[in-house]
């Protein structure tokens, strides 16, 4: 398994995190570390998911956790390039919802159906 399937590029106004390949139990530990680094920069984080080929429950949890982190630390976090694969799996796992979770006070939940990020 390739160690890093994530690329972090520091832009002027944001930190872009681009994923490629899998986001599954095999590499979520690694991905979590990289994401922590991305948030550590303090700039808004953009998660680009277009390159993902496979996601499992741990992957979905990781994305959800990113959102929690963003709310907790006050760092905006956006998701771009949602793929069909990801959307189908999120649907199966019952992630999409009309209203975000308890911490989601500003409606930035990445699973919100209105936002159509996924």
């Amino acid at each position, binding site marked *: 398994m390739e160690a890093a399937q994530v690329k972090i590029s520091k832009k002027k106004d944001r930190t872009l995190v681009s994923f490629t390949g899998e986001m599954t*139990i095999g590499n*979520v*530990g690694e*991905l*979590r570390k990289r*994401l*922590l680094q991305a*948030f550590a920069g303090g700039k808004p984080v953009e998660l680009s998911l277009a390159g993902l080929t496979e996601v*499992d*429950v*741990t992957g*979905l*949890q*990781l994305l*959800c*956790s*990113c959102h*929690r*982190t963003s709310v*907790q*630390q006050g760092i905006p976090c956006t998701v771009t390039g949602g793929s069909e694969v990801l959307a189908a*799996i999120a649907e*199966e*796992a*019952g*992630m999409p*919802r*009309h*209203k*975000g*979770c*308890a911490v*989601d006070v500003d409606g930035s939940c990445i*699973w919100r159906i209105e936002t159509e990020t996924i």
Partner: protein
Amino acid sequence: MSDAFAQAFKDEARELLADLEEALLEMEDNPADLGLVGKVFRTMHTIKGSGAMFGFEDIASFTHNVETVYDLVRNGELSVSKELVNLSLAARDRILAMLEASESGLPADAGRNDEVIKGFRALVPAAKEAAKSGAPDAPEPEAAAPAQVVTYRIRFKPEPGIFASGVNPLSLLRELQDLGPCHVVANTCDMQPLDALDPELCYLFWDVILSTSAGRDAIDDVFIFVVDSCELSITVIDDGSSDEAGGGYKKLGEILMERGDLTQQQMDELLGKQKKFGELALEAGLVNAATITSALMEQQRVKEIRQERQVQSQGQEAASSIRVSADKLDLLVNLVGELVTVQARLSLVAQELKRHGELVSVAEEVERLTNDLRDNALDIRMLPIGATFSKFKRLVRDLSAELGKEIELTTEGAETELDKTVIEKLNDPLVHIIRNSIDHGVETPEERLAKGKSRSGNIHLAAVHSGDSVLITIRDDGAGLNVDAIRAKALERKIIPQGAELSDREIWQLIFAPGFSTASKVTSVSGRGVGMDVVKQAIEGLRGSIDVKSEPGRGTCITLKIPLTLAIIESLLVQIGKDRFVMPLAMVDECILLTEKEIEQGHGRDLLLVREKLVPYVPLRKMFRIEGKAPAIQQVVICQLEGKRVGLVVDWVIGEHQTVIKSLGRMYQQVEGMSGATILGDGSVALILDIPAIFNAAEGKP
């Protein structure tokens, strides 16, 4: 077992047998149509199944044998042959015979059943037969009633370490989705931010609302390997039986409480605040948004399914019909008849008491309603003639085979509706006419080829509405009526006097004379000289008429004109002296005045010149020997009778009248010239004139 159920089975079986016959005949024409084979199989299967259920063991076991053969046909192991169709038709007749035997209490002829079954066995390849008879009455899965769809709420909360044991919750969810319509909501309330997250643990848990007919066991099977490493609760939230209880669906709070996400106390506190419950619960932080979402979804889902079910059951109701015994309908029509009579009387009274404006308007309202009621009541008894038509398919098939002819029956206007009693009475006359066409009309294939016609003959049966009547046409493309043979036969039988000069049309009518038959030999089909005269009697009994047209070598066409109903007719009310009579309006052409001067001009013959044409008339006053003197100006009602115009002289024509036909008592049924009676608005009785009979009697006089 209740008789009512047995009767229901018999009624159903009769209908099924009629369908079966139709399907078999169709199958004979299209042997490759597996849809028809399937239909025959299903019909047999239904007869067998419900027969066994209602205690008709003989029918069930007999039908089972037939069904076995059709199973082979359906699977393509046996092909549809003429022999198979013949046997199947015979089997259908045997089932009917068994049904009838159970009604009369006499045993059905078991020997003939065995013959038919033997025939079927002979069709089945030997090996198959052995295999089949080994397990004759194995329960058939397709007979099982579809299971009720039950909706479950499943809360699936895996242990955090579940991924370590290699379980993928997604695949479990997928399995659930395979069981039926499924809504999944993931609860993210335990999610941690990245710094506190152990990405290899499971933080999510799921609420699933599943509607399935697979049963609880199937759901348990999904979780069989994880049941020890998760919290699992499966609750029935809708099983289709609780629709009536309150009719509504559960409130969100109730669902949350049921799930254990909220206590009664917590809910009461929240309800104290006048806000949307979901928002309240969320704001109070007692439950998280995902819990609300999933609860809302559950509510929505249950609501949807109940609505669906309601729509379905409404659909079924709308499409269904009820069985009502014919007696009840007859009673209804009789009562409506009485009502029409009373209404006529009411109108009369209202007319006399004109100054009571209120009464007049009530009478008019009653008249309108009565007319609607009458039309509706009569409409209920209307049946399409198609069922009768399809019976004749079988008749034509069997008879033409017996006589070595090839005849095809085509029908048209099967949807034409006629009163049930009329249809019943039409059956025998139609059978006679069709038999005659098959026996005398259509030639053998050899004769037809020699005449340059197509090998197979055609009999066309058509029904069409025409005013308040139905025209039924039976047309064949056979040899046509042989005028010379008919004339010779009529002379021989002394039906017409020697040297009588008759038009073709009059000669054609001779075939309806009693005792007339030109077939030189008596076949099983016709030729006994009873038939066409019976037909004529029956049709006249229906107040109908028969018309014959024929072209030598081209065929014969017999048209029956039948009134739509026998219960209530539009008629013309007339008066002679103090007596009143009614005549069917359908036969009346016009009414003209008859002065004494015109009577004198006839020089003792009852003839009247109407628009340059002589019209014979019958003075009814004289015929009925009504005493008193006729008024100076009488009226002639001119009627159409077998294509001729004839007149009936009466004192006054009163006007149109709704006539509810009452039959005359037994003592009066032999009186010529009367076909019934009716009660008028003032309670007096008027006789209904039988116009054809009156003219026959008048012509018969020297």
